[in-house]
């Protein structure tokens, strides 16, 4: 028998449930109660492409130090799904705990002797108390939350107030939930021996908020002034569109008329969705679509047109494993090249990489300014881990003095003064021409929108020299984009080092945890978080300023590395890829292991044994 794990405010609880059993809200209640005690948590849903019946897991990492990346390993398994019993039992760390429904006796061979078994006859208790089968199912979840709260020393009053908030005004539901909670607590206190994992009040959450990235990005679109949204359901982006509807109803309903200051259309497919966005953008509204990799593939013809015709558009790509029949419910950062170069001919598109829901909000709003300013499609590259999981992050902030940047739009007044208008004419050297909205002026400023077969004044031309002139201007525009995209964030090691690491997006919390841990082991790395493509000069300088740079990403083909090598003409040997792509969120343990092993091979001293 391994020594039972003892830990206060630093452990991982994993719930194994059956999809559709109502466990999600009970599990969220559990996680939120710990947050309310001032202890940071990171939660992750691991779920199948299914509505009912298949296994689903919910992982709660409790970490007072505030590390919210996925840790890996399990200290306490709440095994509620017989279907996955063997794999769930096997996944517990030695000395960890197995909490299970002991109503039916199980042979000893189904357990392990190096873990601690905590049985509770949940089904029996439910069957005794409830007659309705659905109630038996739903309250079973609350009963185990009650039992766990007793075992882990979670404050009962905190859970009570959360239940109170959830069922505010629905007293009929509140009372039985509270009753079930206490039934679980009472049983655990009387019948179950204490375990080594505890939650203690701390003051480490501060004013941080707990929200998923899809909701945050949708809120960003509301604040950023999006009025037209067109989308087609696809996991994991669907909840972004649904959140936009929710926030629009709340914030965009005209108080006097009850009418909508927005238009949302569920397209018949992704092609129609991006077509609607492009039509709206052409006509001067801020418009977006949200999708995942397969959706972007379908949109690529239109994206080429939008690039060449220079039409603002915003796309939220919530990345997942490919292809369509692949891993729709697993996370990856594997659409970087397909988005950066989406479409035919010589095209490239700006990308934004939010690190958490807070940046999903900020970049979600900023993308509309960038799209209008640059008159081109802008991708906000979320992934399933950020998009569909609730993350603890800094609260949203908005500067009320901020004005939307609608870019270079020639008005009626400007046209009336006789100012020269050429739709594709670069008047001030930044590669960005002026545009007009349809219907602006009776006799001036109208033009016929086409792809590339036109000159600076939008007149039809198939001349090679005219084409090249336009393509060169588009390159100038892309250079301008570099200066407008959010700058990378640098975090230098405590001491001078020849080694650096580049990372982006949802890798951030695990990367930070890994950097802390590596530093404790005497391995120092300067770190740079890339926030956008095209890359700022700082990114190239960072690579050239170090002997060796690791690039950590969640895909097989080192896509950001390819982009960096290609676009910045960097010697590929300078950048060592660190790649994680099994569909689970990257962990600090993985990064530490990979980087330490490679530095070990490079004989970097001092190097002590790294964490598991």
């Amino acid at each position, binding site marked *: 028998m391994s020594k039972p794990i003892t830990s206060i405010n630093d452990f991982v609880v994993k719930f194994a449930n059956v999809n559709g059993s109502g466990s999600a809200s009970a599990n969220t209640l559990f996680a939120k109660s710990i947050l309310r005690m001032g202890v940071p948590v990171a939660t992750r849903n691991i779920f199948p492409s299914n509505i009912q019946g298949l296994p689903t897991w919910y992982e709660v990492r409790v970490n007072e130090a505030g590390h919210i990346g996925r840790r890996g390993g399990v200290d306490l398994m709440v095994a509620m799904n017989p279907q996955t019993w063997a794999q769930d039992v096997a996944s517990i760390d030695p000395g960890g705990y197995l909490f299970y429904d002991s109503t039916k006796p199980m042979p000893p061979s189904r357990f392990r002797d190096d873990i601690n078994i905590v049985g509770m006859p949940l089904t029996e208790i439910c069957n005794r108390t409830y007659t309705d089968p659905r109630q038996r199912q739903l309250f079973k979840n609350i009963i185990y939350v009650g039992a766990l709260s007793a075992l882990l020393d979670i404050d009962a009053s905190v859970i009570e107030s959360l239940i109170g908030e959830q069922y505010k005004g629905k007293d009929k539901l509140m009372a039985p939930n509270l009753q079930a909670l206490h039934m679980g607590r009472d049983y655990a206190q009387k019948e179950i021996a204490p375990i080594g994992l505890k939650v203690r009040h701390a003051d480490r959450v501060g*004013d*941080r908020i*707990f*929200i998923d990235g899809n909701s945050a990005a949708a*809120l960003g679109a*509301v604040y950023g*002034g999006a*009025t*037209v949204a*067109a989308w087609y359901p696809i996991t994991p982006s669907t909840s972004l569109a649904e959140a936009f509807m929710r926030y629009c109803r709340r*914030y*965009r309903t*005209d108080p006097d*008329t*009850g*009418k*909508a*200051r*927005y*238009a*949302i*259309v569920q*397209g*018949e*497919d992704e092609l*129609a*969705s*991006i*077509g*609607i*966005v*492009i*039509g*709206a953008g*052409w*006509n*001067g*509204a801020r*418009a977006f679509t949200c999708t995942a990799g397969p959706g972007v593939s379908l949109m690529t013809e*239109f994206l080429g*047109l939008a690039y060449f015709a220079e039409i603002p558009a915003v796309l939220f790509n919530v990345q997942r494993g490919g292809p369509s029949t692949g891993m729709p419910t697993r996370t990856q950062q594997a659409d970087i090249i397909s988005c950066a170069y989406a479409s035919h001919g010589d095209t490239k598109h700006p990308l934004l990489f939010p690190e958490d829901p807070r940046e999903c909000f900020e970049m979600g709003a900023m993308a509309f300014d960038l799209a209008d300013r640059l008159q081109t499609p802008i991708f906000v590259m979320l992934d399933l881990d950020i998009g569909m999981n609730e993350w603890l992050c800094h*609260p*949203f902030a*908005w500067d*009320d003095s901020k004005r*939307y940047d609608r870019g270079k739009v020639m008005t009626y007044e400007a046209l009336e003064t006789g100012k020269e208008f050429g739709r594709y004419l670069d008047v001030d050297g930044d590669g960005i021409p002026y545009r*007009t*909205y*349809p*219907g*602006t*002026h*009776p*006799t001036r400023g*109208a*033009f*016929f*929108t086409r*792809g590339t077969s036109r000159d600076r004044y939008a007149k*039809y031309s198939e001349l090679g020299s005219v084409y090249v002139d336009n393509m060169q201007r588009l390159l100038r525009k892309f250079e301008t984009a570099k200066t407008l995209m959010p700058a990378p964030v640098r975090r230098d090691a405590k001491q001078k080092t020849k080694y650096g690491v580049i990372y982006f997006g949802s890798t951030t919390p695990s990367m930070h945890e890994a950097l802390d841990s590596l530093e404790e082991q005497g391995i120092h790395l300067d770190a740079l978080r890339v926030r956008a493509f095209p890359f700022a000069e700082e990114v190239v300088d960072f690579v050239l300023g170090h002997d060796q740079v690791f690039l950590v990403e969640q895909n097989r083909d080192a896509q950001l590395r390819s982009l960096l090598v290609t676009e910045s003409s960097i010697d590929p040997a300078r950048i060592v890829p660190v790649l994680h792509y099994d569909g689970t969120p990257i962990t600090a343990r993985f990064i530490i292991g990979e980087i330490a092993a490679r530095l070990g091979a490079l004989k970097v001293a001092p190097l002590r044994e790294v964490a598991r």
Partner: protein
Amino acid sequence: MTYLTKPKLHHPSLPTNALGLTRRDYEGSVSTLCAGCGHDSISGAIVQACFELDLPPHRIAKLSGIGCSSKTPDYFLAPAHGFNSVHGRMPSVLTGANLANRDLIYLGVSGDGDSASIGLGQFAHSIRRGVNMVYIVENNGVYGLTKGQFSATSDRGSKSKRGVANSDSPVDMIGMALLLGATFVARSFSGDKAQLVPLIKAALLHNGAAFIDCISPCVAFNNHEGSTKSFDYVREHNETVNRLDFISSRDEITADYAPGTVETVVQHDGSMLRLRKLAADFDPHDRISAMNYLQEQHAAGEIVTGLLYVDPEAHDLHDHLNTVAPPLNTLGEAELCPGSAALDKLNASLR
């Protein structure tokens, strides 16, 4: 086509409309289509309709897909913004444009390749949604720009220029438009301007999805013996169910008609459609009987033209979405951004 540019100077005696504009002010650049192309007649009818309706040309947005028909928006309404989009995808671009600014008139021009093959889905769904637009399909049964392949509206048995008979069933766009809920459905013929112009005028003022299937023979690839989309064939089999006189609300009604042969339809905006019945048993307010009638006539080899269905009380996508009256593209921070106070409140609810 001609390589001569149009002279800018107009004859001083050209008639003007209520806006003081001449018909020439509604024209576009010189067509690059083949001489005698039916599409050019349709462009001419659009020019005529907009001129007669006194529409400010810049308040129309003209959108198209890809193909010969989709080139035509360049050849009419020069003061209007145009958008030559992606093959088969005009309807989605038009839908988005319409959502952004409900105050413009949207004219979508497409062809049978663009709308019945690659774009069949987008055609169908834009009709389903009731986008406020005029959707004209310039239907010639052939891919002209790629030199003569059959299109999906070619009748079974119709012969190509090289004598090959088409073996596939045709897509019936009128039937589909009726089935999918279009609130204005008409078929016309590019060779019958007197019929086409009033139909376009009525469609332009219709508040909803107005679909016009306009048979427009391709003089280069589909105007031969054995084709069911040739000028001769269409003239021979044209079964006109009614003639439409379009009357704007301020015109005085003066014409006399024999009793029982005329019906007046008042549209949403007050414009009146005076329908002279030619087929006694045809009722353009009954969607189901219109569909039956069309099927029967089609089976008999006839091409039914005229106003086939109209719902004068139609609603459009903006009505369905309950959007505000001002165009969405005119709203600014004050109307769109909830501000920091609302955000602070939201933050508090997320702890």
